[in-house]
């Protein structure tokens, strides 16, 4: 039982990181039907910028702020320079475009920061043992900050006018434009949100899971799988999907073969696409992927 709980705890903290990536996918997809494959790179970039900032003498909080500013800047740049100029964007076009962006970002990170894996110092070190289950301080921080971010994102979409405008773009793009919501502004806002979440995920994950120029790929894929659990349009679905994926991975690694850890995400993806292509939590019956 202790072992089981230990695996679940570790899975939840890893899953929380997937959840943040997944919300980023959802934020962008709902507005313009764009699947942003560079979402994982936003996470790696956030981590690497923060590590670099701490290394050049900034305190942790300032480094995190620098990471957020730079990643959001890159995300907005991607939207302006790559997504916006395309006249008739389809989901397939967006996948190809952002795959290119992802490769370019990886190459840039490799050139700037080199090939080594690095980690940040945890926000608070130390660990707590309750009934034989060890929880790292950083894991509590991850869970707490992801919870706050999730509630904030939910509140933004549900309670603020801007958030409602974004949802309007997603559900009725023509009607949204008729009532004066600019699809361009909405798209940029969604990338800002995705960049912000990516940077936060990068800073939070780095102390435990380390960051290197290529660590975004796997995170992005798993975040994408978590997002499909919500049909790519549901924020609560994305959060639940992320946590579920993290826990499943750890349980399989613990009780089955640890080599199969990375296979979990893809098995889940296949099952979801066959059984419920609209997502486990999707409101739409038809496939949107």
């Amino acid at each position, binding site marked *: 039982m202790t*072992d089981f709980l*230990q*695996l679940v*705890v*570790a899975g939840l903290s*890893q899953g929380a990181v997937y959840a943040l990536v997944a919300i980023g996918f959802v934020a962008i997809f709902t507005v313009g039907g764009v699947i942003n494959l560079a979402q994982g790179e936003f996470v790696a970039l956030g981590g690497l910028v923060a590590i670099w900032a701490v290394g050049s003498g900034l305190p942790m909080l300032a480094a995190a702020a620098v990471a957020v500013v730079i990643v959001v800047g890159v995300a907005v740049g991607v939207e302006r320079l790559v997504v916006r100029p395309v006249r008739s964007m389809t989901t397939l076009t967006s996948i190809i475009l952002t795959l290119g962006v992802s490769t370019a970002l990886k190459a840039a990170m*490799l050139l700037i920061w*080199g*090939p*080594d*894996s690095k*980690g940040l110092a945890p926000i608070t070190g130390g*660990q707590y*043992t309750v009934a034989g289950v*060890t929880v*790292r301080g950083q894991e509590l921080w991850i869970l707490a900050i992801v919870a706050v971010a999730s509630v904030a994102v939910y509140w933004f979409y549900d309670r603020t006018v801007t958030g409602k405008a974004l949802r309007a773009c997603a559900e009725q793009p023509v009607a949204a434009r008729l009532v004066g919501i600019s699809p361009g502004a909405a798209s940029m806002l969604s990338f800002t949100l995705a960049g912000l979440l990516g940077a936060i995920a990068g800073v939070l994950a780095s102390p*435990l*899971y*380390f960051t*290197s*120029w*290529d*660590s975004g790929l796997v995170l992005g894929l798993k975040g994408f799988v978590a997002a499909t659990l919500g049909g790519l349009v549901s924020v609560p679905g994305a959060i639940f999907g992320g946590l579920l994926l993290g826990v499943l991975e*750890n349980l399989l*690694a*613990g009780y089955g*073969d*640890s*080599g199969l*850890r*990375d296979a979990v995400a893809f098995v889940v993806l296949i099952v979801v696409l066959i059984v419920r292509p609209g997502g486990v939590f999707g409101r739409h019956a038809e496939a949107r992927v």
Partner: protein
Amino acid sequence: MKLRTRWSGLATALALSVLVAGCSESKSTNNAGGGASTGPVKMGAVLDITGAGASLGVTERKSIELAVKQLNEKGGVGGRQLQLITEDNQSTEDGAAKAINKLVSQDQVDIVLGASRTGPSLAMRPIAESSKMPMISLAASKAIIDGSQWVFKTAQNDAVVIAQMIDLAKQRGWKTIGLARDASGFGEGVAEGMTDQGKSGGISVIRIEKFAPDATDFTAQMVNLRSANADANVIWGIPPAAALAQRAYRQLGIASPVLQSHGIGNQAFLDTAGASADGLLAPLGRINVADQLPADNPQKKVLTDFIDNYRKAYGGEQPSAFAGYGYDAVNLAAEAIGKAGTNKQAVRDYLEGVKNHVGVSGVFTMSPQDHSGLTKDAVVMTTVANGKFTLMSKPG
């Protein structure tokens, strides 16, 4: 339209002339590759510069470049300059196979160094054998050289490191061992080696856990090691994975002593593992404890010179054990080519007969049966104290 035809005619003529020039040039290098005695000696290196093996490959590239520069400043090898061609295999097996194919058929090098890790080295071996290309691997597993004709290696065999671990187990009375190993080639055969060598002392491996070289969370493996409750546990991997596993080991409060392999012999491991590394035991090459060696150690001078030169060349950075593997490979290759020329058969035969070559990783004495040339004397038992590798057993 007319204009366009004329231009395209010109372009075709140009392309043709380039092609012809290209052909004649490649023909001339063809002769050089076949053991000519003029022009530069071409040395190819296939390294894990990006990907999971980056913390090895990057320093290896630095030490290889340093060694080549030193040799060229001294007048090269047999009066000819060394030309280095480095390829990044991205820490993948297929990348390594592609890279050695390119070096053999396109660059027509005289000798190949690499790869950094066992998996990619094993992928290169059949190509080296079939094209009769001398190759010096920088990786650990004995499988790379077992029964090979053309492949040699500089890293200490996993078998000699296991031998040191088993010696320690006998000394301390450990009977059961739990193992968490790299799932790639580096970790293959470790459990079997321990079972074999431990048999005489009644030592057995009771639990085997695996992790991917680029894994980031080790809770699952360490939870299982904790449940197995062995007398001692061995983590067999390279940084950053080995360091993250070390952290998880301490985090879960596992009481048994923990041993690590010689895959951790660099500063990146110590930086990443931090305080969790304190107290671990690891058989390492002497480069990690060079400052603690007595002055009469045969390797002392080679080690001190190498460390000084490397630090001078790379802004005070401390060279790792992996840097040493690269440095030794260049020097072994240079010695062989200097004595035997670039005839590949002669180079191979010379390497097989190397005796008492004092290198950074140990004193090499090769034989037809042993293309590694290092015994268990090439590694010494160390422990980590205050974030530093510290010589543990009898000095020397």
